[in-house]
């Protein structure tokens, strides 16, 4: 079986969410001219935003279930695809507006994709502006077992390890949902710790650092200790940076343990037990070095197959590094994703 953990359905515009928005929000959107949310994380026309053979003549890629099935599921032999919508509902500042749009997006995912093709699974998108409301949304959507994870972005207002966000992890554990952290900023902070880059290329490369700060925070704050069954998946994060970070965390942990006395497993152990990374993009040349990085991480269970459709990360259907043998590819495609998503566990 092959599972693709990072597929992006395209939301064409705000009107696409109207069937799922309460009437006053629809009318306010029309009145105010809120016609679209065009994310600065993925400006539509950059060469990265869509592979040429996945870019339609007009409009956004991946806007229908049948299109994604024909372009992304079938060519790769994928049996199950997890959808991670990137329509930037997290950019709303007002609690109620943010929550209304997040709910609408989740209902759109359900109606347009989950209901139309049994191979799809969904992610519950939440705004972190109001944690109570985020938990209500998770509780609301969790009843539908086709939702397998809660989705947040790698760049957030406060680091994800902070206790303010723990009710969300509580809800994840309660419902058997994984926590998916996807590349991108909600722009409550600048893209880097030194402010705003000049170029989109820098913005995109900077996501890897955002993930590193988040991993460090989750470890230090004790999220993995408090929620030992929570699975955290880093999506479109790259993974070649992982070993260097784990070594650095372990080194400082030796002398600074007193600051974080609840930490009871090493960073390497925590990654092996609870943290996963999607395969694409592969941030390195296609050499044996990539296989060696897996050795450095210390586990062959941590990478999960993904195409990152429709982003332009590779050509053709050759997703894997050449150095990954058949055994490793099978773990990445099948065993590891099932283990990372408790709600996939019953798949046959």
């Amino acid at each position, binding site marked *: 079986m092959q599972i693709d953990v990072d597929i992006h359905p395209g939301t064409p515009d705000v009107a696409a969410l109207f069937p799922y928005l309460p009437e006053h929000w629809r009318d306010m959107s029309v009145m105010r001219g809120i016609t679209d949310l065009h994310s600065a994380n993925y400006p539509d026309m950059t060469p990265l935003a869509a592979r040429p053979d996945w870019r339609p003549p007009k409009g956004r890629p991946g806007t229908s279930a049948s299109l994604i099935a024909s372009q992304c599921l079938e060519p790769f032999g994928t049996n199950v695809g997890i959808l991670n919508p990137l329509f930037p509902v997290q950019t709303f500042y007002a609690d109620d507006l943010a929550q209304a749009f997040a709910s609408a997006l989740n209902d759109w995912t359900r109606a347009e994709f989950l209901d139309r093709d049994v191979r799809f699974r969904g992610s519950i998108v939440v705004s972190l502006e109001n944690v109570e409301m985020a938990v209500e949304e998770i509780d609301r959507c969790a009843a539908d077992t086709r939702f397998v994870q809660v989705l947040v972005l790698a760049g957030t207002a406060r680091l994800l390890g902070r*206790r303010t966000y723990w009710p969300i992890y509580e809800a994840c554990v309660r419902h058997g949902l994984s926590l998916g952290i996807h590349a991108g900023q909600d722009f409550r902070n600048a893209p880097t710790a030194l402010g705003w880059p000049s170029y989109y290329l820098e913005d995109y490369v900077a996501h890897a650092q955002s993930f590193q700060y988040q991993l460090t925070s989750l470890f230090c*704050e*004790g999220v993995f*200790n*408090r929620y030992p069954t929570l699975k955290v998946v880093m999506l479109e994060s790259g993974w070649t940076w992982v070993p260097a970070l784990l070594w650095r965390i*372990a*080194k400082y*942990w*030796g*002398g*600074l*343990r*007193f600051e974080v*006395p*609840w930490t*009871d*497993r*090493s960073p390497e*152990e925590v990654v092996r037990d609870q943290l996963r990374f999607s395969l694409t993009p592969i941030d390195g040349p296609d050499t044996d070095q990539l296989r060696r990085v897996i050795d450095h991480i210390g586990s062959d269970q941590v990478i999960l197959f993904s195409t990152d459709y429709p982003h332009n990360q590779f050509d053709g259907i050759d997703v894997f590094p050449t150095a990954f043998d058949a055994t490793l590819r099978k773990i990445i495609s099948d065993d590891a994703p099932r283990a990372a998503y408790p709600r996939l566990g019953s798949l046959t």
Partner: protein
Amino acid sequence: MARHVVAAAADFPPGTRRLITINDRAVVVFNVKGEYFGLYNKCPHNGGSLVQGVLTGLLQSANPGNYTYTKQGEIIRCPWHGWEFDIRTGQSFCRAIRAKARPLPVRVEPGSDIVEGPYKAETVEVRVENDYVVVEA
């Protein structure tokens, strides 16, 4: 194994520490609330000198936000990278750290059992009823 005298117990009050050399290796001995503990001085991490470290307690937590603080004065932190060792056992407290510090048994012995050390049995100050701090190594 031989016994080495560190000091007269009366000269080695609580809260103090002594560095001695035994078989060419530095050993640090602590008096913690009247009990004596000895460790080989070289930190198993990178060789820092434990005698120059600070004694603290052990901060632990079963759950983020909860703290238990025990073994006050019984944890030595290496003066370099701050690794923590229980001076009773040499045990370290972080799973980043594989190594233990090496403890040595330290006892207080009556003066009549002394056989060697910087205090020679024949010095005039020696009294049979005095207690001496002795290290076995």
